[in-house]
């Protein structure tokens, strides 16, 4: 547990970087500090390992004032991941990762064995052990940075905009990896970013900082999106917070319809009749093993010559599907919005159709969960 008690940083030129910060970072959780530049989030982070000394208040780790610890020794017990990775260019990947164990006097053999373990943990190939940082891509360098921070198995991990220098696709991959690692390791992570989406994605708790180094709001991501405490937080969180908040509600609560789903061997006339009875404009055609094939419109079904099988029709694309078991309402809504039929196709983990849900039904469901 990390506690900021009235922590402040005032520079001699009068700049206030952090102003009276009171906040508790829970053990084993990911806490994200987010805010525009100049809001003091990085300064606050660096107070934890004494790279910045507060000019007022205190920072405590498990109740102990960090100022009572020797800075170098304190830092070796806290993992740190920096923007651009900050890898040592003259050391191999393996020796970069082994940095802190070597500083702690583990001995070379043990430190290298540990480095090999960590390379596997963060998804690096053993063949990359003897490479130099410049031979790696940005995403790989960042993985090495994370591995290096974890090398001595510190209980606390500080991450200062670690993924901001890589492209969006690589960033999303690294975020997934971090979520996976955190499920395994349960470290106390403090993560600094200026990207609210990254904050919402990674944080168990999110501290929004405003310019002038003041804490604006400290809440869980779902609550932050639902109830921004003031106009600043609301504008920082973004105008589509309502839709983004849907990420926190599982799609498995939705009731899906199965009665408009037909196998491709079914006759078009039978499907036309069924659809007409239910006053449904679309029928979803699936293969014998229930993989989605496409949509057939009611009018198209009526026009089809007698005896035609559904599989022979020219079907409209089913768009992208959502996984009923793992996806959120946001994914379901997105699938419905993008579908030509205005209906989302829900599938199981094997990609087999479970059922479909229309925008109207989704709307009702959204109303009930978010109200």
């Amino acid at each position, binding site marked *: 547990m990390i506690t900021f008690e009235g922590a402040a940083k005032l520079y001699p030129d009068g700049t206030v970087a952090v102003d009276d910060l009171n906040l508790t970072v829970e053990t084993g959780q990911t806490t994200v500090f987010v805010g525009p530049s100049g809001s003091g989030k990085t300064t606050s982070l660096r107070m934890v390992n004494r790279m910045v000394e507060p000019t007022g208040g205190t920072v405590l780790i498990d109740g102990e004032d960090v100022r009572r610890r020797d800075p170098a020794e*304190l830092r070796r017990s806290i993992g*740190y991941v920096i923007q*651009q990775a900050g*890898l*040592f*260019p003259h050391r191999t990947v393996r020796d970069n990762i082994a940095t*802190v164990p070597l500083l702690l006097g583990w001995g070379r053999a043990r430190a290298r064995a540990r480095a090999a373990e960590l390379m596997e943990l963060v998804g690096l190939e053993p063949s990359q052990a003897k490479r130099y940082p*410049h031979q790696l891509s940005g995403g790989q360098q960042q993985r090495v940075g994370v591995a290096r921070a974890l090398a001595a198995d510190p209980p606390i991990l500080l991450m200062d905009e670690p993924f901001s220098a890589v492209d969006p696709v690589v960033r999303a991959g690294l975020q997934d990896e971090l979520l996976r690692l955190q499920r395994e390791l349960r470290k106390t992570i403090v993560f600094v970013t200026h990207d609210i989406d990254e904050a919402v994605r990674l944080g168990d708790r999110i501290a929004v900082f405003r310019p002038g180094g003041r804490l604006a709001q400290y809440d869980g991501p779902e609550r932050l999106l639902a109830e921004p405490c003031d106009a600043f937080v609301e504008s920082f969180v973004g105008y589509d917070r309502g839709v983004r908040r849907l990420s926190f509600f599982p799609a498995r609560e939705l009731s899906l319809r199965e009665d408009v789903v037909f196998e491709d061997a079914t006759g078009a006339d039978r499907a036309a009749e069924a659809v007409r009875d239910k006053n449904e404009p679309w029928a979803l055609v699936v293969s014998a093993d229930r993989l989605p094939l496409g949509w057939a419109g009611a009018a198209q079904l009526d026009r089809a010559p007698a005896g035609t099988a559904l599989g022979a029709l020219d079907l409209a694309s089913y768009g992208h599907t959502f996984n009923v078991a793992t996806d959120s309402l946001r994914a379901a809504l997105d699938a419905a919005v993008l579908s030509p039929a205005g209906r989302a196709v829900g599938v199981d983990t094997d990609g087999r159709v479970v059922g479909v849900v229309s925008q109207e039904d989704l709307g009702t469901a959204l109303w009930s969960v978010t109200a």
Partner: protein
Amino acid sequence: MVGDRVISDSWDWIVRVTDWGVTNWSHPGEPDRGILPRLLQHMRLSYLSILLGLAVALPMGLACARWKRLYPPVLTGVNVLYAVPSIALFFLMLPYTGFSDWTAIVPLALYTLVILLPNVVDGLRQVPDHVRQAAVAMGFGQLRRLVQVEVPVAVPVIIAGLRVASVATISMVSVASLVGLGGLGQLILSDGFRRQFDAPIVVGIVLTVVLALVTDAVLVLAQRLLTPWSRRGGGGPSRADRAAAVPSGTAATVGGPRTADTAGTSSPGGEAIESGSGSTGEKERTWRS
């Protein structure tokens, strides 16, 4: 026919010079005479000067990188020192060091500073900030950070400076023959110029150039061995930040072809412009010999 004449004359000349070189290579039992002792003296004087220069430039550069305000006055001082003609400095040394090697080594070492100091400082300055910050955050103490991170990362730039400085020093040692030292310079001055005889002059020049080339090659090899991490064609993040400046004219020419992966070198003139002594042009950049 005229062409044949020229060729055979040239050939005779080459044979005569080579013959002189072989005959005078060494006189066993007479350590003061012959080419070999002079070559060895040349090597001793230049290498000791370079090593002494590096030994002074390193702590000086570390101090200048640490206390930034120190750098402009120190650099100006080094540049001014470089403006003192070498002959004058050699003679000034005589009362203190007599005809010992130090009379040549001390001034030559001082001259190397004009190249080595800016390279040490630039080398340390181009250590990317995120690398330095990461070192702090990992829990390196100040001294450890310097020795294990900052100096190693600065090595390519420092070696680039060493290459220019060593080639320049090797060519300048000859001037010390005016005070009875000077290695191969003595072939040029005493045996050649005073006796109006071209063979020793040519041998002196050729051996000086060969020595410079070999030394440079050794330094290139040393860099490859010391910094395998910087051997590459493309530019990395740290490489892009590296200030590359033009090496001084003469030295670069004597130094032979420079490989593409050589790190940037600070020219002696470049920094001086910044620190305010305006009279730095191509003239001052050129090492005299």
